């Protein structure tokens, strides 16, 4: 829907223009006429589907697009137009009911969307117009408006930052609701914009809206009176995105460049398309089979009717003349109406009630998820949330799980665990005082314990305190504010200093600063020029901050250059071990490496800290180089990088830190269970590769024996052109290794442990992925993709790091559309996961710390990852079994309901006489047989909940839609046919002599129908009773209740002459039937006979059933055995 809307927003012509020109401060733009005025859309967000005017037609249209609804509509119309055996009310009323209820539900939902839209669109903003501040509604913002945003407000549209209240021309922004990163990002004002925004005359040229959050290219032409136009380039660091929130900055001014549906945020949201479950697809397939059955039945009957009528005397015997109208009708028209009449007569084979029951089952069934107390998390104080009930059964069919890392697998809560200074290990908790601070676990115990490290220790801690980009946020309640998590008070340091919260671009940094704090060095705060720390003697040290050499993923380190009070210029550097070790002296490395490697193995994030003293000349040179590089307009990045690399050499390694992003409670266990259930887990994260990898190890997604295949920028090397070649090489190599060298049986559902081969894990990063997916369009692209997919599918686990939100969705889509269209599930907690949550078959939101975006857009939301296990293994499994049985049973019971009626046509001159009375025809699906199956589909537990939880492998039994494939369908259909034949011909044989009463009186056609119907109701209900494995009192009540109800109803219906009925067809028919011993015996016989095959099957299947149970029970054990054998 969004796409369509967008294309219509861009006029046809607009599309070809690849950049847009914006006049900042439009109101006073004298040069505006010089450019053709481009039309931009307004800042309105539209997520609703209907308006008041188009609701009725559009909604009806959409509803009747469903094959079933359309079918019922046709049947209804036929009944209205043509003289049919049943009255239009029988199908019209249920249809009307279903349509109305659905329309009301959808209307209500759309009303909610309207409300939400309005809330955003009417949000008050301040816009500068002709130098005055004007209050406006958010939707009125136009491209080119200068907008004022205050602290903690979200940006109403995409803005180019013009002016910030901070004196360093920066502002801090958190993009939690966009990409899920809750840290603060620094954005810069456009250089050289005049201080008073009111008098700004500028033109911005920028690219057309595109969804990539991290890309923005533009130019700004600034005109000053009397001066020539200055041109400034604009990058993503100048762009404030709609949806992000301003932090730590009093206010900013920005000029709107993209508005409304063209903002990057809107472009990043895909419309939530209606998700259909596999079961629904199966239903539709079955529906088509039954439709064919129906049409062929009607066709056969019509043909035979005319063949039969051609025989002498059969068309119109003297006792049964046609009416005049009938005689006048055209023969072909009559044939056609006959055909339609048969359709109507047999239409009950596809009952409306099935849809109603399925919907009800889904709706009511989803309550059990909400009610499950195991999903209740005391921390969040909430249980699970079900946003859509359409997908309950899909939870039992998952093959691929895509999970976010931060906040999903991990707690997103960094904790400083230990550090190692000069080879000595410092455990965090034992390091409260100086004296007993050293804990020599495996480090060499030396006598000079206190002396030498003392100095180093302080240096190390100072380094931790200084080398970061952490901000101190003072006097803020430590709480969740506007969806952004400020750092929380950790249990071990409840000192008053903690009232001030740290804000950083990475939670690791906060953990480190806090780690230093527990060791006596507290970072008090910084402004743009200096940093203050309080040392162990409670003295405040002030350092002049000279340069920050920012972190970037290629260097994988960051540095600061500070000047101490004593005038010493120091460079502190921290970074990944791989990037630090080559830059320090060898002998220092060896002492630290042991610790680092051990910590890494534990799954901690390790960082090494090094420092360097800069002499005055050195510093002067570095300073000059840095300034120069920073000011260069071209290749700024590369130049800066070169200088950084040059500066960060010959450092002295002081120590290493270990920070833990704690895994969520029972994350590893959950992952193991899910893998044991045959699901493949992919981790899609925006995080760095190293961290993600360690998390994967910690979650046991990668194991020690797992061979890792890397498809990352690092593995590909530099250079655009070469990359693609290298990528292909790597792909081919991996493909050969993984796919060819392992037996093909390994692919598919079975996890790798089942074969003794090598485990593979794949690591891909975003850049490589985009290279893969956007590879040259000359056909090799799809080849790449295929290779990649094959590799992925044969790997145990796949880790995708550095993913943009849309890339996550792309991955999901790729897997979703691969061969066999496996069912995918996405788990995430942040807004950056929304796209993949929407894309996957089932989207699960974790009620984490990164706002509620994911939860709102998910299909199901759970408080913690560990709940996924029960959600899938128990609820998913049960719901699948329940609904699969429901669907099969429904088709079955209607087949054996209608088949006798079809057979009866052969004996009533193909005259469309219904076998059953109209009341029975209508009530069969509504009252007599609907409740037991509904109760079954809500309460059945063919395997107990605990067993399902304990034996994950049971999940595989229903994998790949096992209960709704053509095999089971065929079985049920055959059963239905068998029953139908038996009912009809059994009673037919009994009726060879209709004198069944002991008084010699005879039975008529309605008694015939009633006997068949009685057998039918009893058989169908008892059949369900035989299938029920879990008899709660409700099942008892409903099953025996509906049988009793049937009998009572029949007494009642036949006991009175109903004044509103034209014919008293059933008057005393049922009671008379009961007074016939033969009828009783026939009913009993036929019920027993029709259930015989089922019982027989149970008896025969039983040994096999026990076997599978044994296998299931043993599986987790045998897994262990297997592994032992492998080692």
């Amino acid at each position, binding site marked *: 829907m969004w796409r369509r809307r967008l294309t219509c927003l861009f006029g046809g012509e607009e599309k070809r223009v690849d950049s847009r020109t914006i006049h900042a401060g439009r109101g006073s733009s004298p040069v505006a006429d010089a450019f053709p005025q481009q039309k931009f859309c307004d800042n309105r*967000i539209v997520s*609703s*589907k209907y308006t008041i005017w188009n609701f009725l037609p559009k909604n009806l249209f959409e509803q009747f697009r469903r094959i079933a609804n359309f079918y019922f509509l046709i049947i209804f119309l036929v009944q209205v137009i043509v003289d049919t*055996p049943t009255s239009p009310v029988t199908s019209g009323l249920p249809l009307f009911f279903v349509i109305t209820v659905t329309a009301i539900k959808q209307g209500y*939902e759309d009303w909610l969307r309207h409300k*939400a*839209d309005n*809330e955003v669109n009417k949000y008050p903003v301040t816009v500068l117009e002709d130098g005055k501040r004007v209050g406006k509604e958010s939707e009125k913002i136009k491209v080119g408006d200068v907008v004022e945003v205050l602290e903690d407000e979200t940006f109403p549209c995409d803005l180019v930052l013009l002016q910030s209240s901070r004196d360093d021309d920066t502002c801090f922004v958190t993009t939690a*609701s966009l990409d899920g990163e809750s840290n603060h990002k620094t954005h810069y004002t456009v250089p050289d914009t005049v201080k008073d925004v009111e008098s700004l005359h500028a033109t911005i040229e920028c690219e057309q809206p595109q969804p990539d959050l991290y890309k923005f290219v533009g130019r700004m032409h600034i005109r000053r009176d009397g001066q020539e136009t200055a041109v400034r380039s604009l990058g993503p660091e100048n762009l404030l995105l709609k*949806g992000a929130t301003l932090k730590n900055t009093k206010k900013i001014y920005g000029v709107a460049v993209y508005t409304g549906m063209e903002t990057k945020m809107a472009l990043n949201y895909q419309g*939530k398309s209606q998700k259909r479950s596999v079961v629904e697809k199966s239903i539709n397939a079955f529906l088509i089979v039954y439709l064919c059955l129906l049409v062929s039945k009607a066709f056969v009957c019509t043909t035979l009717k005319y063949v039969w009528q051609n025989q002498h005397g059969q068309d119109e*015997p*003297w*006792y*049964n003349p046609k*009416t005049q109208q009938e005689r006048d009708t055209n023969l072909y028209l009559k044939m056609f109406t006959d055909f339609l009449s048969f359709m109507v007569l047999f239409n009950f084979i596809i009952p409306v009630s099935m849809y109603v029951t399925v919907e009800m089952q889904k709706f009511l069934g989803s309550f059990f998820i909400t*009610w*499950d107390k195991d999903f209740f998390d005391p921390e969040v*104080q*909430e*249980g699970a949330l079900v946003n859509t009930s359409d997908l309950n059964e899909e939870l039992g069919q998952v093959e691929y799980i895509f999970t976010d890392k931060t906040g999903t697998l991990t707690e997103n809560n960094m904790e400083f665990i230990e550090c190692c200074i000069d080879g000595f290990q410092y455990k965090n908790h034992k390091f409260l005082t100086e004296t007993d601070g050293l804990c020599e676990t495996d480090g060499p115990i030396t006598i000079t314990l206190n002396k030498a490290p003392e100095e180093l220790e302080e240096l190390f801690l100072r380094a931790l305190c200084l080398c970061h980009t952490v901000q101190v946020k003072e006097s803020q309640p430590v*709480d969740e*504010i*506007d969806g952004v998590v400020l750092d929380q008070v950790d249990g071990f340091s409840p000192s008053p200093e903690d009232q001030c919260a740290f804000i950083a671009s990475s939670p690791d940094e906060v953990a480190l600063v806090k780690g230093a704090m527990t060791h006596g060095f507290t970072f008090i705060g910084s402004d743009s020029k200096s940093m203050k720390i309080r040392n162990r003697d409670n003295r405040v040290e002030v350092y002049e901050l000279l340069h920050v050499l920012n972190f970037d993923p290629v260097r994988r380190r960051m540095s600061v250059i500070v000047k101490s009070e004593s005038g010493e210029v120091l460079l502190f550097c921290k970074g990944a071990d791989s990037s630090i070790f080559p830059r320090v002296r060898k002998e220092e490395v060896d002492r630290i490496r042991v610790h680092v490697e051990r910590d890494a193995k534990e799954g901690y994030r390790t960082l090494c800290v090094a420092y360097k003293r800069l002499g005055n000349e050195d510093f002067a040179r570095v300073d000059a180089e840095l300034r120069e590089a920073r000011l260069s307009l071209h290749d700024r990045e590369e130049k800066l990088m070169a200088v950084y690399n040059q500066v960060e050499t010959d450092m002295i390694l002081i120590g290493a830190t270990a920070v833990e992003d704690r895994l969520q409670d029972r994350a590893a266990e959950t992952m193991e269970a899910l893998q044991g259930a045959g699901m493949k887990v992919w981790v899609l994260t925006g995080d760095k590769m190293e961290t993600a990898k360690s998390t994967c190890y910690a979650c046991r997604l990668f194991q020690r024996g797992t061979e890792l295949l890397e498809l990352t920028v690092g593995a590909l090397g530099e250079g655009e052109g070469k990359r693609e070649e290298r990528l292909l090489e790597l792909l081919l190599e991996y493909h050969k290794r993984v796919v060819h060298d392992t037996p093909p049986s390994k692919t598919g559902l079975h996890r790798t442990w089942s074969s003794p081969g090598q485990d593979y894990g794949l690591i891909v990063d975003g850049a490589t992925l985009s290279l893969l997916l956007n590879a040259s369009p000359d056909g090799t692209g799809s080849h790449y993709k295929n290779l990649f997919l094959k590799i992925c599918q044969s790997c145990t686990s796949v880790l995708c790091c550095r993913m943009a939100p849309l890339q996550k969705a792309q991955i999901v889509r790729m897997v979703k559309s691969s061969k066999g269209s496996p069912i995918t599930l996405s788990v995430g907690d942040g807004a950056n996961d929304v796209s993949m949550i929407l894309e996957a078959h089932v989207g699960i939101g974790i009620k984490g710390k990164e*706002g509620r*975006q994911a939860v709102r*857009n*998910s299909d199901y939301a759970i408080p913690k990852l560990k709940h996924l296990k029960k959600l899938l293994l128990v609820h998913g499994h049960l719901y699948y079994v329940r609904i699969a049985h429901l669907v099969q049973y429904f088709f079955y019971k209607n087949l054996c309901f209608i088949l006798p009626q079809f057979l009866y046509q052969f*004996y009533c*001159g193909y*005259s469309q006489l219904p076998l059953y009375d109209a009341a029975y025809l209508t009530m069969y699906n509504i009252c007599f047989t609907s409740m037991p199956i509904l109760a079954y589909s809500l*309460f059945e537990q063919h395997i107990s*909940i605990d067993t399902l939880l304990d034996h994950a492998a049971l999940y595989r039994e229903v994998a790949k839609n096992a209960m709704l494939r053509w095999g089971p369908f065929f079985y049920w259909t055959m059963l239905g046919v068998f029953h139908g034949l038996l009912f009809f011909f059994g009673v037919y*044989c009994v009726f*060879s*002599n*209709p004198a*069944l009463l*002991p008084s*010699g*009186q005879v*039975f*008529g*056609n309605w008694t*015939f129908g009633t006997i068949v119907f009685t057998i039918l109701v009893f058989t169908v209900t008892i059949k369900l009773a035989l299938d029920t494995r879990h008899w709660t*009192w*409700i099942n008892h009540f409903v099953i025996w209740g509906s049988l009793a109800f049937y009998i009572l109803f029949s007494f009642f219906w036949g006991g009175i002459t109903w004044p509103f009925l*034209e014919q008293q067809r059933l*008057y*005393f028919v049922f*009671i*008379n039937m009961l007074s016939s011993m*033969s009828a009783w*015996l026939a009913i009993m016989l036929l019920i027993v006979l029709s259930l015989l095959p089922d*019982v027989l099957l*149970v*008896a*025969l299947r*039983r040994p096999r059933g*026990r076997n599978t149970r044994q296998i299931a029970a043993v599986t987790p054990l045998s897994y262990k055995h297997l592994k032992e054998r492998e080692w």
Partner: protein
Amino acid sequence: MASGYSAKEEDGHHSGALGPAGGAAVRSRKPDNTAFKQQRLPAWQPILTAGTVLPAFFIIGLLFIPIGIGLYVTSNNIRELQIDYTGTESSSPCFACSQNYSWNMTTPCVCSVSFSLDQPFESNVFMYYGLSNFYQNHRRYVKSRDDSQLNGNLNSLKEPSKECEPYRTNDGKPIAPCGAIANSLFNDTLALYYNDPNGTETQIQLVKRGIAWWTDKHVKFRNPVGDDSNLTAIFQGTAKPVNWQKPVYELDSDPENNGFINEDLIVWMRTAALPTFRKLYRIIEKNSSTSPTLPRGNYTLKITYNYPVRSFEGRKRMILSTISWMGGKNPFLGIAYITVGSICFFLGVVLLIIHHKYGSRSSSADLTH
């Protein structure tokens, strides 16, 4: 269902609502720990195994076989005699009648068929007429009646239902009873004579009461009640059905069996299930405890042949039958019961053997593991 993308979310303003104030409301979200909500209702969990199913097979077998034998014997003990008097074959005594048939014959065509009973019919004997290839269950036919008229509704008497077309009115007068079913009322008269060995012919008393369902006769069908108790007066202004020779109020001399509550009419109005059917015509009551109702010997069936079936290749039969507790003669049920019972018993035995063998093998397999 969540909206496409909840625009509300963008600002994140609402999150503030989840402050401490919402705490109380939040706390109540903890799901109730009831057995129902936790899907832990106490439940009976029957496991159908060969062990539990096997006895069922034997029980069914042991139950059904005696029932079947009982039914079979009962059915066999029922005496039944069928005489086809359609008269399509030239040798048939009713050949002439069936050939020269026209609706408005002034003198009825009578034919008589002789037959003999080899065995006496004890107890009450029921006389049926049977029709074949007569589609009483044709939809057009089944619809063509007005139950409200037959129930004595005066409005319907004057204004019959549209369903009765084309037998709704005749010459502007409403037909009573209207519709094709009533119009085609079976109107052959059957009379049974016993040919005494001494040459005399005794007519056997045929009872015409008690052939219809009690409820039909007393509730569903009722004569219209007017100011006059005279049926003729009440039916004034209505026409007789086109094919009838007499109007409805002259069907029988007995006022309790006349008009709409004439049992022949009621029986006919209960449409048959299949194109070959029989309907109860008369009852021959056993009048002495010593002699059989119909002793062994020769009989003559005299038919007043009014009912044409040749045009649609139908057949007409007269059936004499005794009745047991299970109704008329029908060996099917007995045979079916015996068959099903035997199958069950046989399956039970087979399963027992399989189960025994398999069970021991699987347990030994368990041991080897």
